[in-house]
């Protein structure tokens, strides 16, 4: 049995399989379907300083091999997370990572300062790439200057592992990753959703209440894979890869492209047990290919 452990900064993961923010709730929603402690980590829903109601319904559209969402960071706010949700999930024997979202720099700071105190939260994922909120969100993630600025400020305020989640809706994602690395991030994760749109030709209306939304699922995998490859060549800190991973083979492709770990997003909706199956599948791939440690696969693409 191959050694599946990977590390991001000082943080160790029992395997490279995490679940993506916004697609796995707070974990307990999936407890009937899989053993959460078998996962490398779970990244909980985007959490903001204040509670948010998100966008109006409809928030979802199915697309070829994918979906658009326009949830818009609906969440109960950091205080409810800390007081009500955290106590329910902190016993999970896995890395629980909070996806921190916001519209203002001060909000990010306020949230991460509170997270510093939670023992069982060893890392945050800083979401500077949400396409579904009017202010902030993706705006931070589409220029090097603002991405660096917010990373630097959060780095100063947050003591533990800092992963910054990048937007794919940019001309040069490697440049932004470099800026974020220089600003002190321990890791970058990519990709968040691509900005897309769906129209109902019969009613001549947009399908989503917000007109545009975030595209996810296997349709975006080729783009995500390309970006992970570009970014992992450009920076030295570990890359967490995601975007359309549906099975262990997809996950291995991201590792080969340079990812140290992967996240499973939309696939959780199709098969709520998939993340654990992907852990097993990566193990089987290693065995079949005589690989002793999964770290051997990272960036091992033969050019």
């Amino acid at each position: 049995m191959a050694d599946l452990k990977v590390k991001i900064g000082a943080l160790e993961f029992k395997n490279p399989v995490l679940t993506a923010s916004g697609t796995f709730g707070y974990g307990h929603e999936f407890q009937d379907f899989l053993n959460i402690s078998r996962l490398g980590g779970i990244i909980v829903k985007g959490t903001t300083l204040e509670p948010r109601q998100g966008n109006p319904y409809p928030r979802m559209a199915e697309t070829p091999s994918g979906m658009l969402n326009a949830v818009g960071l609906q969440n109960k706010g950091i205080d409810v997370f800390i007081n009500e949700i955290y106590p329910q999930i902190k016993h999970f024997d896995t890395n629980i990572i909070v996806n921190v979202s916001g519209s203002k720099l001060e909000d990010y700071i306020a949230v991460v300062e509170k997270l510093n105190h939670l023992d069982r939260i060893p890392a945050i994922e800083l979401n500077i790439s949400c396409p579904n909120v009017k202010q902030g969100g993706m705006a931070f993630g589409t220029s090097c200057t603002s991405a660096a600025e917010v990373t630097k400020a959060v780095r100063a305020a947050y003591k533990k592992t800092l992963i910054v989640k990048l937007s794919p809706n940019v001309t040069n994602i490697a440049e932004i990753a470099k800026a974020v690395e220089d600003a002190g991030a321990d890791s970058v994760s990519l990709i968040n959703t691509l900005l897309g749109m769906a129209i109902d030709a019969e009613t001549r209306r947009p399908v989503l209440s917000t007109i545009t939304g975030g595209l996810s699922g296997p349709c975006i995998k080729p783009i995500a894979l390309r970006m992970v490859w570009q970014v992992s060549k450009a920076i030295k800190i570990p890359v967490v890869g995601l975007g359309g991973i549906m099975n262990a083979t997809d996950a291995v492709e991201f590792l080969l492209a340079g990812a140290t770990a992967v996240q499973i997003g939309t696939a959780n909706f199709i098969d709520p047990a998939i993340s654990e199956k992907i852990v097993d599948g990566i193990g089987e791939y290693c065995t079949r290919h005589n690989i002793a440690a999964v770290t051997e696969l990272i960036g091992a693409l033969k050019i």
Partner: protein
Amino acid sequence: MKKFIDDLTVCSNRKLNNDYFILGLTSVKPLPAMLPGQFAEVKVENNPAVFLRRPISVHDVDYAKNILYLLVKIVGEGTRTLSFLETGNTLNLVYPLGNTFTTEDVKNVLLVGGGCGIAPLLYLARHLHNLKIKTTILLGGRTETDILESEAFRQYGEVYISTDDGSLGEKGFLTNNSIMAQITNFDRLYCCGPLPMMKVLAAIAKQHQTDCEVSLENTMACGIGACLCCVTPTTAGNKCVCTEGPVFNVKQLQWQI
């Protein structure tokens, strides 16, 4: 309630007419406990146009025969593909999902189903019957072929029918059916059907201070409260239809009625 992801086996596929069919699904294991109003997220295979699961209500459960029934209306690619299922085929379900109708504190109730909206009501009628609650059923639709399973409902109570074109039962909208005159006799209305129909009904119920529960059908991605795609505005903010519904008391909803 514990949720499962299971491959069930199609044991029947009964075509009601060109638009509707009922799937019978069985399993080598005993089917799990399911409540009226709950639904399953069904995986549609072999169709490149279908990516996500499709939510379909528990239409009926025969625990003696270990069969779950789903009543489905063909509206698009997913439901069309399901209509081709044959005995022996496999169907993957994530289930049972969602909440249930409340049956406490009632003695005399009216079930109102518009078209495919009757899907969750048959199992509810069976349940109410077991609880010895007096049940009346009102079925409505555009035309004769939209009136489904009226015979099955008759096992559990008196059945009233309305069709827009008068081809079966009373002519006109279901909300104008003669039984509606007795609305104040009922402790609660249970309603499932097209949104406009449910809203009119809820308005009438409100006017007569009759309690009313509705089953909503928002578009869903996960069905288990993880994606937050299926929300409906309630008095307590946006709530997921898949976990805090699909059944809501209209008092909880922000309907302009």
